[in-house]
């Protein structure tokens, strides 16, 4: 009985400390130091929130760069991947389909090597990044769909390079392009 009472009391103590005080203290600190990041890196354009810098969006219109295949179609509720194993025939078929579709959609040569992140679905279903190579393959199509002249096309090409993030601190992670940010930016090209 004595042990039970001690258990209950120390449990209460830890619940208040680690379940209430700890998250509140952390929230307090970060809301002062990193308020933008703590609230989801939301991007506001003309008074309207257009998305989060970190969360990908579904892009299937010809005027935008398309992102990775997402099992959830970029619906964050809930996030997740396909969980297909490599010997799953569905995955094999999907990869073949996506390859054909990417080539058709971007009017590429049928022998083009399509970067693998465009063929395989991401883990979160929300991956906002693709490789620079996958972005460059789409420049021509986006420019045509937007009726860009040669000058603007060049500007678009430069923009892709500008939005290419190097590995963090030069050595961590992969080279990548955040296509949500890129697409947001190209809406501004005149």
């Amino acid at each position: 009985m004595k042990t039970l009472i001690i258990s209950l009391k120390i449990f209460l103590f830890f619940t208040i400390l680690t379940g209430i005080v700890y998250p509140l203290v952390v929230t307090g600190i970060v809301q002062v130091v990193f308020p933008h990041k703590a609230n989801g890196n939301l991007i506001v354009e003309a008074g309207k929130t257009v998305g989060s810098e970190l969360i990908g969006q579904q892009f299937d219109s010809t005027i935008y760069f398309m992102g990775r295949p997402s099992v959830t179609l970029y619906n964050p509720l809930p996030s997740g991947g396909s969980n297909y194993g490599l010997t799953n025939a569905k995955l094999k078929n999907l990869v073949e389909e996506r390859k054909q579709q990417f080539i058709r959609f971007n009017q590429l040569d049928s022998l083009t090597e399509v970067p693998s992140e465009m063929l395989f679905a991401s883990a979160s279903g929300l991956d906002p990044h693709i490789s620079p190579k996958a972005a460059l393959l789409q420049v021509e199509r986006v420019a045509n769909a937007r009726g860009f002249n040669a000058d603007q096309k060049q500007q678009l090409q430069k923009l892709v390079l500008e939005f290419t993030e190097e590995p963090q601190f030069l050595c961590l992670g992969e080279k990548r392009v955040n296509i949500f940010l890129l697409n947001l930016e190209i809406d501004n090209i005149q």
Partner: protein
Amino acid sequence: MTILEIIQILIFFSLLIGLTPILGKYMANVFTGNRHFMLPVFGWLERLAYRFIKVDPNEETNWKSYAFGLLMFNLTGFLFVFLIQLFQAVLPLNPAHLSNVSWHSAFNTAVSFMTNTNWQGYAGETTLSYFVQMVGLTVQNFVSAATGIAVLLALIKGISRKTTDKLGNFWVDLTRSTLYVLLPLSIVLAVLLVGQGVVQNFNSYETIQTLQGAEQVIPSGPAASQIAIKQMGTNGGGFFNANSAHPFENPTPFSNLLEMLAILLIPASLTFTYGKMVGSTRQGWTIFTAMIILLISGLAISLYAEYASNPVFGHLSLMEGKETRFGITNSLIWSTSTTAASNGSVNAMHDSLSPLSGMIAMINIMLGEVVFGGVGAGLYGMVIFVILTVFIAGLMVGRTPEYMGKKIEAFEVKMAIIAVLAPSFVILIFSAWASVSQMGLSSLNNSGPHGFSEILYAFSSAAGNNGSAFAGLNANTVFYNLTLGIGMLIGRFGVIIPVLAIAGSMGRKKITPLSAGTFRTDNWLFIGLLIGVILIVGGLTFFPALSLGPIVEQLLLNNGITF
């Protein structure tokens, strides 16, 4: 692989090895009651806790009272988490208006977080309110890890003391682990993670219009505080369904490095603490070396398997279930570390790993979570294998086996065998049951051998208190919620109780002084023997099951066969 990827592997291991003695030494000071720099900061909280529960911190107990206190405390935590899920709809901090959780899912989740498993049959963002995540789960993240450290501390006292039945005070060990180790590290990590973009707020989910004009609901919540302790405490339960693959849980390569380090940091450092507290840092480094050899070997095989080409996908890099910002190598350092430590968080979907990489993840768990393993739990599990190794070595040379001057006798060996067999029993028997019953098979997401792997992985993860998954398996059913829940209980307490019994028995023994005839347990020969015993025990137990799953799947993949 590129040079850049090799550099990232080197950075990771250098940081891990470099930080081990620093944190290890600090923890040894904390646990032996020496002065340390956190005392002025949180010392008053420790004293407050003892006054509140009316416990004298200098009063020590025998192993049975220690175990009883531990069980009562865990039971309290279980009941609390279970109940608040059943009533979350009427509880505060539920801006997404999520409904009450079903009884079987609530049971599974409560067991899962109490046992430091953090297996998740549910999706966080669509199932649990901020209140349950914070007041229920975050608390268990702390105290289940502290419970693991407490058991280890009792074992250390049993080994290093002589002719006593006093193993310390569970409440003191629990409080010090939480206040001086887990809490400060988590605060620092949480703030660093938010600096990279992890969310931490109490806002409602935000509905936005995408650039294409569709609606997207962006989830939110106090994620960073939970993620920090989920990594530090080898818990692994994600705030969001995609766990650390979710951009809000792990937004950048740097946050990824921090989180990967956090997975292994405390378990690795505890080997140093252990050496310090038993009076020989060499003994600690011996265990560390055996662990890191197993870890690096696993990583090497995983990388090889993942980068190899196969007839189904040719030379494509296998990005299914992986995030662009991490790429393949970072996903595999994570998958190897998270399963070696009983963390279980993921930054890539293990279900979509190549069969052999998935197998390494499974083997790391099946070996008993002793390759660093859970906070505290990994090391006490490893000491069980150390006892088996000195026993086997003793049989080979015909001497009474000894460890740290303590004779290893029939009782210790019996308890060690129970601790090894309990999780193995769960893995094999429950997997067999699920594989032949409709209740088990109807949850599969893949067919062929990979389907069997999903089942085998689930029960390994439960029994090893890991919590990662071949997540295609729909485990939120009555059958899986209950069997996995029971598996987690057996895997946790079926090891803790024998370990405490060993601690009690060893504490009562005399210490035989070191002599020329003593079998050394701090050299390369012993490291080799220890690794041998771990692999043989694990291999003999699980090779047949693995052959039916990942091994045959890899052979089929190599022949281009799909299902």
